[in-house]
């Protein structure tokens, strides 16, 4: 069903070493437009590194990464900035700017990267906050927000420029089951309403099964399985079967 759509994300033979440690080894897969792929794997298998490579925060030693047609691994400076406008990134810690209010956190990319007027920006920010149920909290600093609120605010900031691709690092990390489920609901809503392509690194199989169309399983830096959750339940590798099994 997915292969007929053009790919929004393509990883082609991506490898990355830190010193003598091979973190990713010739990882290749693609994500068609509008699909959500959840990346599973044990801790330290290179999942977060893969996301950082996809946003261009680090460069691969080998291979290419195409996001919305941009070869992220080869871009620098202004061209990389232009490509990043098409990508939203939700950090594990949300990474909100702690000296800015919630409003300013969301308004920053709009002020810097668009020609929108003050009133237009105000409208977009309020709509984004409303979407993540944070209306009325705009004047608070991130330190005054709970973990779940910070994560929702981080998601709102990642989506404020209406990106084609959303990269999410551990959306449920540090959250209780109910709050984690609320974040999953927001991701599902975004996918349904805007057909946003998503790559989600997670350890939460329950959430991954709700949001993800396919799972990619990494083990020791290698992609060992890629497919629908149901297909992977009977995979030959015990690691894959354990990782995709619901608790």
């Amino acid at each position: 069903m997915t292969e007929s759509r053009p790919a929004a994300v393509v990883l082609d033979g991506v490898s990355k070493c830190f010193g003598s440690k091979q973190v990713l080894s010739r990882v290749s897969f693609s994500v068609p437009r509008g699909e959500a792929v959840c990346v599973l794997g044990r801790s330290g298998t290179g999942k977060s590194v893969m996301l950082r490579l996809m946003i261009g925060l680090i460069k691969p030693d080998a291979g290419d990464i195409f996001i919305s047609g941009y070869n992220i691994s080869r871009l620098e400076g202004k061209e990389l900035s232009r490509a990043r406008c098409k990508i939203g990134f939700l950090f594990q810690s949300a990474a909100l700017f702690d000296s800015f209010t919630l409003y300013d956190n969301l308004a920053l990319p709009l002020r810097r990267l668009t020609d929108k007027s003050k009133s237009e920006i105000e409208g977009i920010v309020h709509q984004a906050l409303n979407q993540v149920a944070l209306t009325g909290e705009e004047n608070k600093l991130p330190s005054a927000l709970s973990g779940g609120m910070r994560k929702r605010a981080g998601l709102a900031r990642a989506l404020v420029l209406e990106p084609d691709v959303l990269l999410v690092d551990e959306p449920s990390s540090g959250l209780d089951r109910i709050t984690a489920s609320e974040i999953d609901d927001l991701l599902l809503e975004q996918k349904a309403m805007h057909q946003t392509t998503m790559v989600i690194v997670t350890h939460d199989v329950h959430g991954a099964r709700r949001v993800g169309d396919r799972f990619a399983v990494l083990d020791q830096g290698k992609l060992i399985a890629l497919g629908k959750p149901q297909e992977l339940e009977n995979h030959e590798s015990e690691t894959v079967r354990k990782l995709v099994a619901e608790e």
Partner: protein
Amino acid sequence: MRRFLQFIGDVTLFGIRVMANVCRRPLELGETWSQMSEMGVRSLPLVSSSGLALGVVMTLHTRSTLVAFGATALIPRVQSLSFFVEIGPLVAALLVAGRVGAGIGAVIANLRVTEQIDAIEVLSVDSFKFLVVPRVIACVIVLPLLTVFMDACGLVGGFFSEFAVSHLPPKLFLERAFQGVEWSNFVPPTLKTAVFGFIIGAVSSYYGYTMNEGTHGVGKAATNSVVTCSLLVILADVILVKIIFLLFPGSAI
């Protein structure tokens, strides 16, 4: 030795990168203004209280010596010249290196640890231009202003100390303080603190921006910033004083 030379090279390149980015758009005027108020206004209590105390102490020391020569009338002039030429610029710079340098190092290092610098980059904002350049510019602008304030507080402290002993009228104190003081005794030493400001801003930003040791590195960045900035300010002072003497021979006391 190799590590030291590498550090010097890295900091120099970092400083050159700052200068290359100063006039590049966007100018980050809002962030620069915010840093100036943070560094300037919040440093005022420290600078003014230190200036007052040093002024009092300086007068107490010079009085006991000058009394022996019957030259107590020179106390205001000694006070003003010593503050304008050296004490004001150097002490203000060292105080700012301690307060602001540690702050810049720790804040930027913390932004690195908490992935906020990555978040800025991800939002297509140049983190170097956004975080480092405004802080360095703010240091360059604020430090000469704080130095003038320190000079003024030093004179006020000196006056109070002298008034307590000799009841010297304020008008006469000021007349004697500025008697024989040339512009070259005041302007070049004050302006040299812009160089100190650049050193403090660039070096402490360097420690924060390049830190990659997790939360442990935040404290390390703050400590290294203060130690290195203080040392470099003192070394730069030696060179700048020599340059000032070459350019303005009349400024030598």
